[in-house]
């Protein structure tokens, strides 16, 4: 979800003056993906194809997938598989690719020893509807771990995307409906989880995300132009930022909207990966703006999102923030409209405070805040923009707050504006701020 701006006006003008000619005839190709296209549910009979190192008909996952017909099951035995897998097209619709749901650590797709392009995406599902992927661990991917695109319906369950060389761990792009559950993602240099570019729908099909755990990523959850997604009963901690639903020019259909983030634990998102990380960190340039580490939940633009009943604590910049997407090219989609932030519990009863509990630049209209409990500090401090829910009307813009939030992003230390407080211990977890001195479990 990185952004860059380019100066191309002059170039375009020069290209036009060259006035190159070409044959008039041209072919238009189908768009890269049209999720929503009907793919009939297969009638069967269905087969189960077994994969394992010895004693099975198939020794590689891909060979079994190639043989499988729509609706079949590919059952993968415990072991390590050094291959990337593609599930492509309607002929693979309703396929079930099943590893070890009870213990996904026993079925590993390891791309670390492979060369490009085999080392890019561990499992890529493209234009095949209603595929189920369950019970796998992956590591060593350079691109994405488990990735579905251009599909209507998918089930991702019991998956582990462990990085530490990839971009997104568990990822759905240009897809309608689906579910992600009982899964985890770590050490990805963008989003541990990511749902992006959801097509707008007249009759929205919701995507349900439940019981996931995302930690040690740049972003626990990235949601560029994400729609109709409910994220619940999940944990986001030790990331640079916890969850960032956002509007982005580089992908279709901005802004993000109609998402629900409810009943999650969002804490300790203070991983300053700029000071060291097992993954490659792209240095900020004059053309890109990094997200500032230290934020629990950030709405960067967006409409009709609901953030409620979450427990948000120990994030050094802000617990929950919202800011206009002032960089968006589409001016009609920049503003925050109709978002609700309510019934959240901030600061763990004072035992694990956020640097600032709530931050809002007051942009947009119909946005409301509260009631929320445990709120000790807000930016702006006078609480002006934080009108309680429900609310209809223009919100009160606060330019100083927007400027302050921009400064967070521009801070070369990435932690100058942190307000560091104590953490209440959580069994089995070590707060991650500086990777080099961190005593938690590092990736292989």
């Amino acid at each position, binding site marked *: 979800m990185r952004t860059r701006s380019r100066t191309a006006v002059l170039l375009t003008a020069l290209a036009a003056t060259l006035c190159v000619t070409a044959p008039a005839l041209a072919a238009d190709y189908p768009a890269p993906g049209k999720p929503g296209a009907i793919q009939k549910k297969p009638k069967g009979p269905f087969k189960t194809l077994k994969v394992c190192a010895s004693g099975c008909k198939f020794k590689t996952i891909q060979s079994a997938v190639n043989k499988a017909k729509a609706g079949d099951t590919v059952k993968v035995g415990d072991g390590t598989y050094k291959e990337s897998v593609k599930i492509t097209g309607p002929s693979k619709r309703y396929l079930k690719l099943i590893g070890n749901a009870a213990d996904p650590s026993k079925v590993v797709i390891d791309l670390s020893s492979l060369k490009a392009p085999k080392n890019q995406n561990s499992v890529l599902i493209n234009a095949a509807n209603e595929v189920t992927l369950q019970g796998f661990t992956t590591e060593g991917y350079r691109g994405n771990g488990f990735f579905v695109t251009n599909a209507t319906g998918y089930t991702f369950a019991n998956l582990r995307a462990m990085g530490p060389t990839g971009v997104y761990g568990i990822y759905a*792009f240009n897809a309608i409906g689906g579910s992600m559950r009982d899964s985890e993602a770590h050490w990805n240099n963008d989003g541990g989880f990511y749902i992006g570019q959801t097509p707008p729908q007249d009759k929205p099909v919701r995507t349900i995300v439940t019981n996931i755990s995302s930690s040690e990523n740049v972003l626990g959850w990235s949601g560029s132009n994400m729609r109709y997604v409910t994220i619940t009963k999940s944990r986001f901690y030790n990331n640079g930022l916890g969850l960032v639903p956002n509007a982005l020019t580089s992908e279709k259909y901005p802004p993000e909207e109609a998402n629900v983030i409810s009943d999650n634990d969002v804490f300790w998102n203070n991983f300053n990966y700029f000071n060291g990380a097992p993954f490659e960190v792209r240095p900020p340039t004059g053309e890109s703006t990094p997200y500032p580490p230290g934020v629990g939940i950030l709405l960067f633009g967006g409409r009709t999102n609901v953030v409620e009943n979450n427990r948000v604590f120990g994030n050094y910049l802000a617990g929950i923030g919202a800011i206009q997407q002032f960089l968006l090219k589409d001016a009609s989609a920049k503003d925050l409209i109709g978002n609700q932030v309510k019934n959240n519990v901030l600061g763990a009863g004072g035992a694990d405070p956020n640097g600032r509990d709530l931050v809002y630049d007051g942009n947009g209209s119909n946005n409301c805040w509260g009631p929320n409990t445990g709120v000790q500090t807000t930016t702006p401090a006078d609480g002006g923009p934080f009108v309680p829910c429900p609310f209809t009307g223009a919100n009160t813009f606060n330019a100083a707050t927007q400027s302050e939030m921009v400064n967070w992003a521009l801070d070369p230390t990435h932690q100058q504006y942190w307000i560091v407080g104590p953490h209440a211990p959580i069994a089995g977890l070590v707060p991650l701020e500086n990777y080099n001195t961190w005593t938690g479990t590092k990736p292989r």
Partner: protein
Amino acid sequence: MTLTKHAKIALSALAVSAIALAPAAAGAGAAGKKKKAPKPVTEKVGIFDNYYEPAKLTVPKGSTIKWEWPITTGDTHDVTLDKGPKGVKKFESEIAASEYVYTKKLTVAGKYHIICSLHEEMVMDITVR
């Protein structure tokens, strides 16, 4: 408005293309002489977040384009033919973040509009003469 690094490089590429085309244009005007087709070339295109560099190319028929992903991991991108001359089959690269090279020989004259299927703003145009 100042030129960005990318605009300058692309501008240079356009200038080279224009120079390359000049002899052919001159030759066309020479009475009785058979027009000599320019030799195919190999052009490299960089893949970045979120742009191709250069974003415009003009090459002789039969030229080869090599799209090169960076060594260090960027965002994931691909190369997909969105519109092309009649008769050209659609082509698309793998979706990749780094260390990958996708090569395509363009044998049919015309305009090729290339997109990244993951990033709407990421486009390039190739003219094959």
